[in-house]
């Protein structure tokens, strides 16, 4: 039992099967477009999808407690638009302050959602659908029919161009993404709070009886999601040098898809940071590759959908195989 062969290890883990999928995808694309795996290209992919990747972490936590949050891109737009307007009218100038304000706004937005869901016991999909409209509407109100363009954003947009945080090698945006992933990996794996999230998602009643404050955990999870959405708002504004009230509309589906591809269960209790990362990477690679390999524009969404479904089916099959092997072991 102790000696697991490498092959078993690969077929025995959902993450490993995703890694293989990712490698196969990249290999296929490289055949069509040799420059695909160049360093510059990989960095471009990471930078252009940082927002989705970071929000996938929050969505992972939300899905782990058996919830869902479809208001995230509205929170993102509200936070991003707010600081965009602040820069435009020179209320603030410091880049750091912009990030702090956006993160704080996002956290407050998330906290309100968390309270409504955990304390008010509203179904997550209904509550977040309401807040999706509320926050998006507020973003339009903040915008007052204006955009904050590159000219208005001053030095804030330079953050996404600079490598200062990455020791001159890696773009700031990517550094923040990596940082988020490291923190979440540690928190979910090795802290009490992290284990509580899994406990609440696996069996809420059991968690409650064993003394976990389920309401607090759920509230915290949505607050974290909001915080990440707020940070993403600041990042998106900086990366695209533009804040618009309709920023990232309907991208929440990409974030949920990233988690699901990564093997995160929609019923809660099952999923990992590594899975979310791989799921987000699969989506990012697809988004980058479709225009590159010359697939007709009108067919691109169909191809994207087919790949997503195929990957998920593969993932489910791996899971079943795992469950079966586990059962066999138990019988012995």
């Amino acid at each position, binding site marked *: 039992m102790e000696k697991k062969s490498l092959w078993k290890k690969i077929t025995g883990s959902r993450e490993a099967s995703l890694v293989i999928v990712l490698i196969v995808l990249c290999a296929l694309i490289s055949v069509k*477009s040799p*420059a695909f795996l160049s360093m510059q*290209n990989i960095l*471009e992919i990471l930078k*252009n*999808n940082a*927002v989705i990747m970071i929000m996938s972490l929050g969505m992972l936590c939300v899905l782990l407690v058996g919830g869902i949050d479809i208001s995230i891109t509205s929170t993102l737009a509200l936070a991003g638009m707010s600081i965009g307007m602040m820069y435009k009218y020179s209320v603030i100038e410091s880049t750091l302050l912009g990030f702090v304000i956006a993160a704080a706004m996002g956290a407050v937005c998330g906290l309100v959602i968390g309270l*409504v869901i955990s*304390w*008010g*016991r*509203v179904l997550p999909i209904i509550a977040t659908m*309401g807040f999706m*409209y*509320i926050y*998006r*509407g*507020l*973003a*339009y*109100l903040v*915008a*007052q*029919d*204006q*955009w904050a*363009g*590159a*000219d*208005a954003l001053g030095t804030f947009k330079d953050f996404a*161009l600079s490598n200062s945080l990455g020791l001159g090698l890696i773009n700031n945006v990517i550094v923040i993404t990596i940082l988020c992933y490291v923190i979440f990996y540690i928190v979910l794996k090795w802290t009490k709070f992290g284990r509580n999230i899994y406990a609440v998602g696996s069996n809420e009643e059991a968690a409650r009886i064993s003394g976990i404050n389920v309401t607090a955990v759920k509230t915290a999870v949505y607050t974290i999601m909001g915080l990440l959405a707020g940070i993403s708002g600041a990042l*998106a504004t900086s990366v*695209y*040098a*533009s804040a*618009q*009230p*309709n*920023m*990232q509309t309907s*991208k929440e589906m990409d974030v949920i898809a990233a988690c699901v591809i990564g093997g995160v269960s929609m019923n809660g209790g099952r999923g990992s940071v590594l899975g979310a990362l791989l799921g987000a990477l699969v989506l990012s690679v697809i*988004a*980058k590759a479709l*225009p*590159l390999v*010359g697939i007709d*524009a*009108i067919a691109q969404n169909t191809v994207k959908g087919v790949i997503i479904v195929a990957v998920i089916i593969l993932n489910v099959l791996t899971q079943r195989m795992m469950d079966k092997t586990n059962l066999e072991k138990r019988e012995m």
Partner: protein
Amino acid sequence: MKKKILCTILSAVMAASLLAGCGNSKEEQTTASAVEETAAEDQEEAPEADAAGGEEAEPETDAAGGGTYALVTKSAGNPFNEKEAEGFQKAVEAIGGTAIIQHPESATADAQITVIQSLISQNVDSICIAANDENALQAALEEAAAAGIKVCSVDSTVNVASRLVHVNQAGVTEIGQCLVDAVYDITGGEGQWAVLSATSQAANQNAWIESMKEIIESDSKYAGLELVEVAYGDDEPQKSTDVTQALLQNYPDLKVICAPTTVGIAAAAKVLQDQNSSVKLTGLGLPSEMAEYIGDDDAHSCPYMFLWNPIDLGRLGAYTSAALVNGDITGAAGEKFTAGDMGEYEIVTAGDGGTEIILGAPFAFTPENIEEWKVVY
């Protein structure tokens, strides 16, 4: 159970406070409360709009020479639409009428239909609409016409059966010619170029692209220009970035990207400028969004670009509405009317078989005038 009730009340209060907030911020700009952004408010909004219309109808009928002219823009939250509304408002005020500006909460035909129906019940004299869908508004607009309301479209047209006349910011061929000449000029007369469009279904985008292709084919002067790809960025910064990067990678000899869409051109400009690419950009863009990227030197990605003047477009829409209401014109080709201080305009036959009024050639934004325009819109 108690918690459920409490929660319902809380949500209701929240929605109501949001609604109140909306009302306040808009009341200053327009006489009627504008339809606000959040779709959640739809149901609550409708009776309120009706009520506002009821109150207004009285004084308007009394006002001598005035009328009620409505403008329905594509959606809230877009500087272009806002400036269009501003021009409309100014022109209506100049002729002593009352303007009702309605921004639908989203850029969809559904949202516009709701707005049109509330305008019909407000008994407006005219509706001037920038359509989100060419055909989907037909039933609602025919209902308006049956109620005696004069309907014209502006910026983006509705089909012939739905309108009396279309106020066109610039003729399709004029825009196509402008863009082709820009590409010709920037490439130096020959080389590869690509188009970065919005979605593959956008009617105006496709018409312009088609027109560019025709112009290039019809004149041997442009024989050296090779259109390598029409790419679609779906008017999302993220996808437009991916698509622009793909163009650069797939066509190393690319000289110019032409993006006739405001979101696409800004995203492409950012990519090109950040990468210090030698590829240049032109197209249709908002001056305030593009100010950072317009310049003649290598450090700037866009030497010059075009757009029409949305304020003038709104004004012409207002004068056209007034002329239709007064009976100066009926919308038939060949009719002429005076659009206030904008001078005389003639109605001509449009490409779709209907009639239209053309504002003029697109306006060029160059390094010389961008500083002045970026504060306008």
